[in-house]
Protein backbone atom coordinates (compact mmCIF):
# COMPACT_ATOMS: atom_id res chain seq x y z
CA UNK A 1 0.00 0.00 0.00
CA UNK A 2 1.11 3.58 -0.52
CA UNK A 3 2.62 5.87 2.09
CA UNK A 4 -0.77 7.48 2.60
CA UNK A 5 -2.25 4.25 3.91
CA UNK A 6 -3.82 4.54 7.31
CA UNK A 7 -5.33 1.98 9.56
CA UNK A 8 -8.40 2.84 11.54
CA UNK A 9 -8.28 1.76 15.13
CA UNK A 10 -10.60 -1.01 16.14
CA UNK A 11 -14.01 0.31 17.04
CA UNK A 12 -13.78 3.46 14.88
CA UNK A 13 -16.85 3.28 12.67
CA UNK A 14 -15.81 4.02 9.11
CA UNK A 15 -19.32 3.26 7.90
CA UNK A 16 -21.84 5.32 9.84
CA UNK A 17 -25.45 4.13 10.03
CA UNK A 18 -26.60 6.77 7.51
CA UNK A 19 -24.34 5.41 4.80
CA UNK A 20 -25.80 3.46 1.93
CA UNK A 21 -24.51 -0.02 1.36
CA UNK A 22 -22.89 -0.96 -1.94
CA UNK A 23 -26.01 -2.91 -2.84
CA UNK A 24 -28.34 0.04 -2.21
CA UNK A 25 -26.26 2.24 -4.49
CA UNK A 26 -25.97 -0.16 -7.40
CA UNK A 27 -29.58 -1.28 -7.14
CA UNK A 28 -30.88 2.20 -8.01
CA UNK A 29 -28.60 2.52 -11.03
CA UNK A 30 -30.67 3.84 -13.92
CA UNK A 31 -30.13 3.18 -17.61
CA UNK A 32 -26.91 5.04 -18.44
CA UNK A 33 -25.51 6.49 -21.62
CA UNK A 34 -21.87 5.42 -21.72
CA UNK A 35 -20.82 8.11 -24.18
CA UNK A 36 -21.14 11.89 -24.50
CA UNK A 37 -20.69 14.14 -27.52
CA UNK A 38 -20.46 17.92 -27.24
CA UNK A 39 -20.72 20.11 -30.32
CA UNK A 40 -18.53 23.06 -29.33
CA UNK A 41 -19.66 25.85 -31.64
CA UNK A 42 -18.83 28.87 -29.43
CA UNK A 43 -15.39 30.33 -28.91
CA UNK A 44 -16.15 32.54 -25.93
CA UNK A 45 -14.73 32.04 -22.46
CA UNK A 46 -18.12 31.66 -20.81
CA UNK A 47 -19.10 28.87 -23.21
CA UNK A 48 -15.75 27.13 -23.68
CA UNK A 49 -15.39 26.86 -19.91
CA UNK A 50 -18.59 24.83 -19.29
CA UNK A 51 -17.82 22.76 -22.39
CA UNK A 52 -14.50 21.70 -20.89
CA UNK A 53 -15.95 21.24 -17.39
CA UNK A 54 -18.64 18.92 -18.75
CA UNK A 55 -16.20 17.04 -21.00
CA UNK A 56 -13.70 16.37 -18.21
CA UNK A 57 -16.47 15.44 -15.78
CA UNK A 58 -18.02 13.00 -18.26
CA UNK A 59 -14.60 11.40 -18.70
CA UNK A 60 -14.27 11.19 -14.90
CA UNK A 61 -17.63 9.40 -14.87
CA UNK A 62 -16.17 6.81 -17.20
CA UNK A 63 -17.95 8.00 -20.33
CA UNK A 64 -16.30 7.82 -23.72
CA UNK A 65 -16.32 11.56 -24.44
CA UNK A 66 -15.95 13.47 -27.70
CA UNK A 67 -15.90 17.22 -28.26
CA UNK A 68 -16.45 18.24 -31.87
CA UNK A 69 -15.02 21.75 -32.31
CA UNK A 70 -16.66 23.69 -35.10
CA UNK A 71 -16.89 27.28 -36.33
CA UNK A 72 -15.95 29.75 -33.54
CA UNK A 73 -15.38 26.75 -31.29
CA UNK A 74 -12.28 25.84 -33.27
CA UNK A 75 -10.27 28.89 -32.20
CA UNK A 76 -9.70 27.74 -28.58
CA UNK A 77 -7.77 24.77 -30.07
CA UNK A 78 -5.24 27.11 -31.72
CA UNK A 79 -1.86 27.12 -29.97
CA UNK A 80 -1.57 30.13 -27.65
CA UNK A 81 1.70 31.22 -29.23
CA UNK A 82 0.32 31.16 -32.79
CA UNK A 83 -0.74 34.66 -33.77
CA UNK A 84 -1.63 35.05 -37.45
CA UNK A 85 -3.19 32.10 -39.27
CA UNK A 86 -4.51 31.64 -42.81
CA UNK A 87 -3.25 31.98 -46.35
CA UNK A 88 -5.15 34.97 -47.73
CA UNK A 89 -5.81 38.43 -46.32
CA UNK A 90 -9.35 37.56 -45.22
CA UNK A 91 -8.24 34.55 -43.17
CA UNK A 92 -5.33 36.54 -41.75
CA UNK A 93 -7.66 39.40 -40.83
CA UNK A 94 -9.99 36.90 -39.14
CA UNK A 95 -7.19 35.55 -36.95
CA UNK A 96 -6.09 39.09 -36.13
CA UNK A 97 -9.56 40.10 -34.98
CA UNK A 98 -10.43 36.77 -33.35
CA UNK A 99 -7.25 35.58 -31.66
CA UNK A 100 -7.04 31.83 -31.10
CA UNK A 101 -5.83 29.96 -28.03
CA UNK A 102 -7.40 28.88 -24.76
CA UNK A 103 -5.63 31.70 -22.92
CA UNK A 104 -7.09 34.44 -25.13
CA UNK A 105 -10.81 33.80 -24.75
CA UNK A 106 -13.24 36.69 -24.53
CA UNK A 107 -16.44 36.93 -22.55
CA UNK A 108 -19.73 37.06 -24.47
CA UNK A 109 -20.79 39.90 -22.17
CA UNK A 110 -18.87 42.33 -19.96
CA UNK A 111 -15.65 41.71 -21.88
CA UNK A 112 -14.45 45.34 -21.42
CA UNK A 113 -11.47 44.92 -23.77
CA UNK A 114 -10.15 41.99 -21.76
CA UNK A 115 -10.73 43.37 -18.26
CA UNK A 116 -13.75 41.07 -17.82
CA UNK A 117 -11.86 37.83 -18.57
CA UNK A 118 -8.92 38.99 -16.40
CA UNK A 119 -11.27 39.48 -13.45
CA UNK A 120 -13.01 36.19 -14.17
CA UNK A 121 -9.67 34.35 -14.19
CA UNK A 122 -8.72 36.04 -10.94
CA UNK A 123 -11.98 34.95 -9.30
CA UNK A 124 -11.56 31.42 -10.65
CA UNK A 125 -8.08 31.11 -9.17
CA UNK A 126 -9.35 32.43 -5.85
CA UNK A 127 -12.09 29.79 -5.78
CA UNK A 128 -9.99 26.83 -6.88
CA UNK A 129 -11.61 26.58 -10.30
CA UNK A 130 -9.40 25.16 -13.06
CA UNK A 131 -8.81 27.51 -16.01
CA UNK A 132 -9.90 26.59 -19.54
CA UNK A 133 -6.23 25.96 -20.38
CA UNK A 134 -5.83 23.57 -17.44
CA UNK A 135 -9.11 21.83 -18.29
CA UNK A 136 -8.02 21.44 -21.91
CA UNK A 137 -4.87 19.65 -20.72
CA UNK A 138 -6.84 17.51 -18.26
CA UNK A 139 -9.35 16.57 -20.98
CA UNK A 140 -6.58 15.43 -23.35
CA UNK A 141 -4.82 13.56 -20.54
CA UNK A 142 -8.09 11.78 -19.66
CA UNK A 143 -8.54 10.63 -23.23
CA UNK A 144 -11.36 12.95 -24.28
CA UNK A 145 -11.53 12.91 -28.08
CA UNK A 146 -11.00 16.50 -29.25
CA UNK A 147 -12.09 16.52 -32.88
CA UNK A 148 -11.58 19.67 -34.97
CA UNK A 149 -14.02 20.28 -37.82
CA UNK A 150 -12.21 19.84 -41.13
CA UNK A 151 -14.54 22.19 -43.04
CA UNK A 152 -14.05 25.04 -40.55
CA UNK A 153 -10.28 24.52 -40.64
CA UNK A 154 -10.28 24.83 -44.44
CA UNK A 155 -12.59 27.82 -44.52
CA UNK A 156 -10.91 29.75 -41.71
CA UNK A 157 -7.42 28.82 -42.88
CA UNK A 158 -6.37 26.86 -39.80
CA UNK A 159 -3.76 24.16 -40.36
CA UNK A 160 -3.22 21.08 -38.22
CA UNK A 161 0.11 22.61 -37.15
CA UNK A 162 -1.73 25.73 -35.87
CA UNK A 163 -3.70 23.54 -33.44
CA UNK A 164 -2.53 22.11 -30.11
CA UNK A 165 -1.04 18.62 -29.79
CA UNK A 166 -2.93 15.66 -28.39
CA UNK A 167 -6.14 16.20 -30.32
CA UNK A 168 -7.79 13.79 -32.74
CA UNK A 169 -7.69 13.85 -36.52
CA UNK A 170 -10.02 16.44 -38.11
CA UNK A 171 -13.41 15.09 -39.16
CA UNK A 172 -16.73 16.16 -40.61
CA UNK A 173 -20.37 16.41 -39.59
CA UNK A 174 -21.09 12.79 -40.51
CA UNK A 175 -18.42 11.46 -38.15
CA UNK A 176 -19.71 13.78 -35.41
CA UNK A 177 -23.33 12.67 -35.85
CA UNK A 178 -22.32 9.01 -36.08
CA UNK A 179 -20.50 9.38 -32.74
CA UNK A 180 -23.58 11.05 -31.27
CA UNK A 181 -25.84 8.03 -31.88
CA UNK A 182 -27.11 6.88 -28.50
CA UNK A 183 -24.86 9.29 -26.60
CA UNK A 184 -25.64 12.28 -24.39
CA UNK A 185 -25.39 15.19 -26.83
CA UNK A 186 -24.92 18.88 -26.10
CA UNK A 187 -24.57 21.85 -28.42
CA UNK A 188 -22.70 24.69 -26.77
Amino acid at each position, binding site marked *: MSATSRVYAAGTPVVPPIAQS*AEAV*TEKKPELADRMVIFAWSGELDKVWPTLILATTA*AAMGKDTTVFFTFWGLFPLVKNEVRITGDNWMQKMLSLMNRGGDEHLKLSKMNFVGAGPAMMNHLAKEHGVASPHELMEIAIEMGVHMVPCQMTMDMMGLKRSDLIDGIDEPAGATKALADAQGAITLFI
Partner: protein
Amino acid sequence: MSITIAKSLDLKGLSCPLPIIKTAKAMKELAPGELLEAFATDPGAVPDFKAWSQTTGNALVESSESGGVYRFVLKKKEI
Protein backbone atom coordinates in the same frame (compact mmCIF):
# COMPACT_ATOMS: atom_id res chain seq x y z
CA MET B 1 -11.65 -5.30 13.23
CA SER B 2 -9.97 -2.42 11.42
CA ILE B 3 -10.57 -0.98 8.00
CA THR B 4 -7.70 0.27 5.87
CA ILE B 5 -7.97 3.42 3.81
CA ALA B 6 -5.82 2.74 0.76
CA LYS B 7 -5.54 6.35 -0.33
CA SER B 8 -6.39 9.76 1.08
CA LEU B 9 -7.02 12.85 -1.03
CA ASP B 10 -6.95 16.47 0.07
CA LEU B 11 -9.37 18.34 -2.20
CA LYS B 12 -9.91 21.28 0.13
CA GLY B 13 -10.22 24.64 -1.64
CA LEU B 14 -10.96 23.06 -5.02
CA SER B 15 -14.15 23.74 -6.96
CA CYS B 16 -16.13 21.77 -9.49
CA PRO B 17 -15.08 19.77 -11.45
CA LEU B 18 -11.63 19.21 -9.90
CA PRO B 19 -12.67 17.20 -6.80
CA ILE B 20 -14.42 14.58 -8.94
CA ILE B 21 -11.70 14.53 -11.60
CA LYS B 22 -8.95 14.01 -9.03
CA THR B 23 -11.05 11.38 -7.25
CA ALA B 24 -11.76 9.50 -10.49
CA LYS B 25 -8.04 9.49 -11.30
CA ALA B 26 -7.09 8.27 -7.83
CA MET B 27 -9.75 5.52 -7.90
CA LYS B 28 -8.10 4.07 -11.01
CA GLU B 29 -5.03 3.24 -8.93
CA LEU B 30 -7.02 1.27 -6.36
CA ALA B 31 -7.69 -2.45 -6.40
CA PRO B 32 -11.33 -3.63 -6.25
CA GLY B 33 -12.72 -3.41 -2.73
CA GLU B 34 -10.15 -0.88 -1.53
CA LEU B 35 -11.25 2.36 0.13
CA LEU B 36 -10.43 5.93 -0.80
CA GLU B 37 -11.16 8.88 1.44
CA ALA B 38 -11.39 12.45 0.19
CA PHE B 39 -11.66 15.74 2.07
CA ALA B 40 -13.32 18.69 0.34
CA THR B 41 -14.69 22.12 1.22
CA ASP B 42 -16.94 22.69 -1.82
CA PRO B 43 -20.56 22.10 -0.72
CA GLY B 44 -21.33 21.12 -4.32
CA ALA B 45 -19.13 18.07 -3.82
CA VAL B 46 -21.82 16.45 -1.64
CA PRO B 47 -24.36 15.87 -4.46
CA ASP B 48 -21.51 15.37 -6.97
CA PHE B 49 -19.90 12.52 -5.02
CA LYS B 50 -23.29 10.87 -4.58
CA ALA B 51 -24.03 11.16 -8.32
CA TRP B 52 -20.55 9.95 -9.27
CA SER B 53 -20.95 6.94 -7.01
CA GLN B 54 -24.34 6.11 -8.51
CA THR B 55 -23.25 6.42 -12.13
CA THR B 56 -19.92 4.61 -11.79
CA GLY B 57 -21.01 1.91 -9.34
CA ASN B 58 -18.28 2.70 -6.78
CA ALA B 59 -20.11 2.73 -3.45
CA LEU B 60 -20.09 5.89 -1.36
CA VAL B 61 -19.75 4.35 2.09
CA GLU B 62 -19.46 7.64 3.91
CA SER B 63 -20.45 11.23 3.28
CA SER B 64 -20.03 13.37 6.38
CA GLU B 65 -19.22 16.92 7.40
CA SER B 66 -17.18 18.31 10.26
CA GLY B 67 -16.26 21.96 10.73
CA GLY B 68 -16.92 22.88 7.10
CA VAL B 69 -14.88 19.97 5.75
CA TYR B 70 -16.66 17.17 3.94
CA ARG B 71 -15.32 13.64 4.14
CA PHE B 72 -16.20 11.06 1.55
CA VAL B 73 -15.21 7.40 1.59
CA LEU B 74 -15.57 5.48 -1.64
CA LYS B 75 -15.17 1.75 -2.17
CA LYS B 76 -13.76 0.66 -5.49
CA LYS B 77 -16.23 -1.60 -7.21
CA GLU B 78 -15.55 -5.26 -7.87
CA ILE B 79 -15.09 -5.99 -11.56
